[in-house]
């Protein structure tokens, strides 16, 4: 029984990290239809900036917001310098641009930071909490809390605010959105800034548990993207559920079947879901009118 509890705790911690990354994917997709493959790099920028600042003696409560702001700035620059000049290009080209941006950012991070692995202490210390025979790190609670907070914010922002609805309108038809008076340029700008901030926040929260180095972004993005696909692209609820589900499947497979099949079982579930429900668990069925 305590074993099951431990597996669940592990799955939820890891799943919450995937979910936070997936939520970043969701926002840019919602605004532009672009799957941003540089999303993993935002996670690393958040983690590395926080690690560098904390290493230099800056207190966590200052370093963490600064790292998120640094991620946000890079997100805006990515949009201004790489995506905006090519905004008339087809979607596939934009997606390829984000792949190029991710390679560039990885190289830049080697130069700006270093090639070492970094971590810093958990926000509430590293002494594990005991819950009915299982142990959980206080930082895991921060990660889970952070993911849920980001989810709640996105759900509210996209559906209840003018700016959020503007982002959704821009995605569904940019010209129509512009015609009804939505500033589509600002909507895109905002979505990249927020999405990068969410990625950086995920990095800041996860680094005490997962560690970070300049090259972990690709794998992070892969897991986050899988979570996005499983939950349904574009749905914040789907991103949250997809992330947690993948984390739980991995932990339970590692616990009960074999750790060798951990990644495989997660991908089998994703494939099954995509066969049966191509739009993902919570994705809306998209009908294109010609």
């Amino acid at each position, binding site marked *: 029984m305590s074993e099951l509890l431990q597996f669940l705790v592990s799955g939820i911690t890891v799943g919450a990290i995937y979910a936070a990354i997936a939520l970043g994917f969701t926002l840019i997709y919602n605004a532009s239809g672009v799957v941003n493959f540089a999303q993993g790099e935002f996670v690393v920028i958040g983690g590395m900036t926080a690690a560098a600042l904390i290493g230099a003696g800056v207190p966590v409560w200052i370093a963490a917001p600064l790292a998120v702001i640094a991620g946000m700035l890079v997100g805006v620059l990515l949009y201004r310098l790489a995506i905006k000049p090519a905004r008339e290009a087809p979607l596939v080209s934009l997606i390829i641009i984000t792949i190029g941006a991710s390679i560039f950012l990885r190289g830049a991070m080697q130069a700006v930071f270093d090639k070492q692995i970094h971590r810093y202490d958990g926000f509430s210390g590293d002494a594990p909490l005991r819950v009915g025979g299982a142990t959980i*790190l206080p930082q895991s609670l921060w990660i889970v809390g952070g993911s849920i907070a980001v989810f709640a914010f996105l759900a509210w922002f996209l559906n209840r605010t003018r700016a959020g609805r503007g982002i959704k309108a821009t995605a569904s038809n940019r010209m129509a959105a512009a015609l009804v008076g939505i500033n589509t340029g600002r909507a895109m700008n905002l979505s990249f800034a927020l999405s990068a901030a969410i990625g950086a926040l995920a990095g800041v929260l996860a680094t005490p548990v997962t560690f970070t180095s300049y090259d972990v972004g690709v794998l992070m993005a892969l897991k986050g993207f899988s979570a996005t696909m499983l939950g349904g692209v574009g749905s914040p609820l789907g991103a949250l559920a997809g992330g947690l589900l993948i984390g739980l499947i991995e932990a339970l497979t590692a616990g009960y079947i074999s*750790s060798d099949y951990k990644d495989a079982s997660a991908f089998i579930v994703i494939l099954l879901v995509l066969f049966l429900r191509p739009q993902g668990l919570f994705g809306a069925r998209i009908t294109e009118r010609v």
Partner: protein
Amino acid sequence: MTRQAVAAGVSALALLTGAPALAEIKIGASLAVTGPAAFLGDPEAKTLEMLVEELNANGGINGEEVELVLYDDGADPNKARTFATRLIEEDEVVAVIGGSSTGTTMAMAPLFADYEIPFISLAGAVVIIDPVQEFVFKTPHTDRMACEKIFADITSRGMTKVGLISGTGGFGASMREQCLDVAESSGVEIVADESYGGSDSDMTPQLTNIASTDGIEAIVNPGFGQGPAVVTRNYAQLGLDMPLYQSHGVASDEFIKLAGDAANGIRLPATPLLIPDQLAEDDVQRQPVQDYIAAYEEAYGEKPSTFGGYAYDAFHLLVDAIERAGSTDPVEIRDALEATEELAGVTGVYTFSPEDHMGLDLSAFRILEIEDGGWKPVEE
């Protein structure tokens, strides 16, 4: 005349007049200075450059200057092979050091038999020296020896039942196989065998399973990079009380920094490079270890790594062989290299023979325990 042309003319003149009449001994190297194995190749290249400069400042080998021809293969076997060919045919080196990784080493190895040039590899795998190839040597100990050393320490504590938790990367997978292979002859029984991926962030399910295996007495973690640090933190999080062994792959201060307090009590096999001040006065490795650390810190302002130590040993083995051969003929250098006896390096004490081109025994590894965030040798 443009400025470039002037500059070119000046440097051409410098080449013509600047080259001393002294004969030069050319030593080649192909290392992964950049790319995925840069953590190996970077300290190796820095070490070689530092040693060549030091050697020439002290008069070279038998009065002849040494020139290092270094190429960066980025851990790409194809590039390594091209560079090895270039080193032999165009640069006409007398010996080659290199191959930061097993892949590049094995790609280059056949060339040295064809051209009869001695080659000292800095990579870990057993295949490099087993079966023995006439012109191929290597300095690092093998992962097989790491397993044997760990198991010897486990049995000396009266334990036999071991659980493995291995990384699925090249290093972890290879060492896991070697550990399974030598378990029986070392007198231990592998009762649990778990794995994790290189970027996994939580290994508590695997550790929970190992801990609940019947009769389990010790855990061994073959792995590299951040995985072992995560395993160590999870091990502390779960409050497990059986001893945890890490591999030589994480024998660095970096590991202690990442794993934090959780690292205390962990044991691992390592080279004496980590405990320069705790080596006995009469330890033959004391001098080379302290020399290397002092020189590297002065040159680069940072501590040398285990990997740089492999290059340090390769270079000293080669210089020693050239001095003893009294010649720069590659075949005579090879013969002298094979006759190396009791040469104390930073990794271990080397004695080559026609059957053994690695020249180290288990004494090259010291079992260290982490105590209060520092290394402490375990009395044997």
